[in-house]
């Protein structure tokens, strides 16, 4: 389901070790939009994502959602309930995959039975059903990333923040993860993805922004290149999807 209202962040400022990381930063995300965020190491991409989801407190800032503008402190509870952040290496709880998926649903008031039922259906619908009884700590890096994506997906967040979601993945895992991200996008979830190789997300991204010297600037549009690197989202045509989906 696509949420009707955009989310707008305004006047965001953050100083770390007395050095301003960014000041008066504005960002709006339309419903179902996918933004790719690039920038050098240390530019503040991860810090920005952690602020956007409510985990980190900015020095200043506000957030507009559902038609009203709120000071960041007042918006924080809403952000924590509606914006999900995935670490570069997602953290999975030391329990079964099924219970990892069910965790957020439980926090949203579902009973254990309901939450596990939804989790099992989601796992089966994404070809991850065979993992549901495994301890999440025993999964490979790619599997962990997909389980973490699914754990966020079942919550139907307004905005999903992915920090380098396909970094250091092999080609096969990369494709499977990109496939899942595209399904999330098709489901109406707004996405912000940080990436060192933004072109890998070309078919998904509607906007490409670059964080440099505390400013968010539009970067050159991401266009699929000929001869794209193996594993790039550029290669995600339907036939390819199907191939990886069924394998």
């Amino acid at each position, binding site marked *: 389901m696509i949420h009707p209202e955009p989310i707008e962040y305004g006047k965001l400022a953050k100083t770390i070790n007395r050095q301003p990381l960014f000041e008066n930063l504005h960002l709006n995300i339309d419903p179902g939009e996918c933004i790719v965020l690039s920038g050098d190491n240390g530019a503040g991409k991860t810090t920005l994502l*952690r602020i956007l*989801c*409510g*985990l980190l407190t900015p020095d200043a800032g506000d957030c507009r959602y559902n038609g009203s503008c709120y000071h960041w402190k007042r918006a924080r509870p809403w952000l*924590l*309930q509606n*914006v*999900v*952040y995935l*670490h570069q*290496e*997602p*953290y999975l*709880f*030391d*329990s*079964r995959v*099924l*219970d990892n998926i*069910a*965790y*957020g649903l*439980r*926090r*949203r008031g579902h009973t*254990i039975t309901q*939450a*596990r039922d939804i989790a099992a259906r989601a796992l089966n619908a994404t070809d991850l059903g065979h993992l549901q009884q495994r*301890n999440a700590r025993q999964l490979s890096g790619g599997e962990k990333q997909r389980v973490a994506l699914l*754990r*966020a997906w079942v*919550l139907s967040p307004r905005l999903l923040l992915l920090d380098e979601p396909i970094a250091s993945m092999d080609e096969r895992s990369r494709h499977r993860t990109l496939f899942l991200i595209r399904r999330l996008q098709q489901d109406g979830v707004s996405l912000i993805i940080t990436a060192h190789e933004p072109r890998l997300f070309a078919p998904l991204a509607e906007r490409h922004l670059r964080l440099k010297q505390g400013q968010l600037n539009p970067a050159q549009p991401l266009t699929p290149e000929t001869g794209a690197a193996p594993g790039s989202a550029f290669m995600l045509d339907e036939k390819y999807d199907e191939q990886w989906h069924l394998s």
Partner: protein
Amino acid sequence: MDQLSEAFINALYLLFSGDRELWIIVATSFSVSLRAILVATPIAIVIAFLLAMTRFPGQRSLVMIIHTLQAVPAVVVGLTVYIVLSRQGPLGDWRLLFTQTAMIVGQILLCLPLLISMAHATFAGADRRAWETARTLGANRVQATLTFFYELRFALLAAIIAGFGRIIAEVGSSIMVGGNILHHTRNIPTAIALETAKGEYAQGLALGIVLLLLAFGLNALLHLSQQQRPVYA
């Protein structure tokens, strides 16, 4: 060598002969130490968590003091509690001296520094993504903190086992504030001290082996519980 083997046979005999006095002593030991660890654990976990997760002036000094307190001899703790609880002491009116409550107080003070230190090390080295992940998935502060503790349960359990090991075997504090009263405050370590003073070395060693066997049984139970598949949602 003969004395040791005799002690071991004596220990097995004592354990399986249903000796009433022995089991009263064992029950006193475990009852006092389990109650002490039950009270000390939540206090230690809260203090350790705050020490690891918050910043305040003097924090490092406080951690150093707590680390140092691990080295305090049991008899010094016992003496301190004795002074506080004795007739002339500030809490003398409570008439707690030579009771199990006094022993529990002494044992709590003994194991707190060890528990706090180990739990603090656990929290300080913990993966904070656990807490952040819980929060971003919609958990409130309390739920996220409980999830964080749950993720660290094995390390925290190890701290509790170490704390329990420290107090179940201590003699200095128990004998000083408990008084070694038969059927009331006599526990295994104070009974061993008594038997040794009487020259009954084999009996003392046998009681030591009983203590070890029972502690081993308890640890085995805890380890078995660790191996259970963690299930929560």
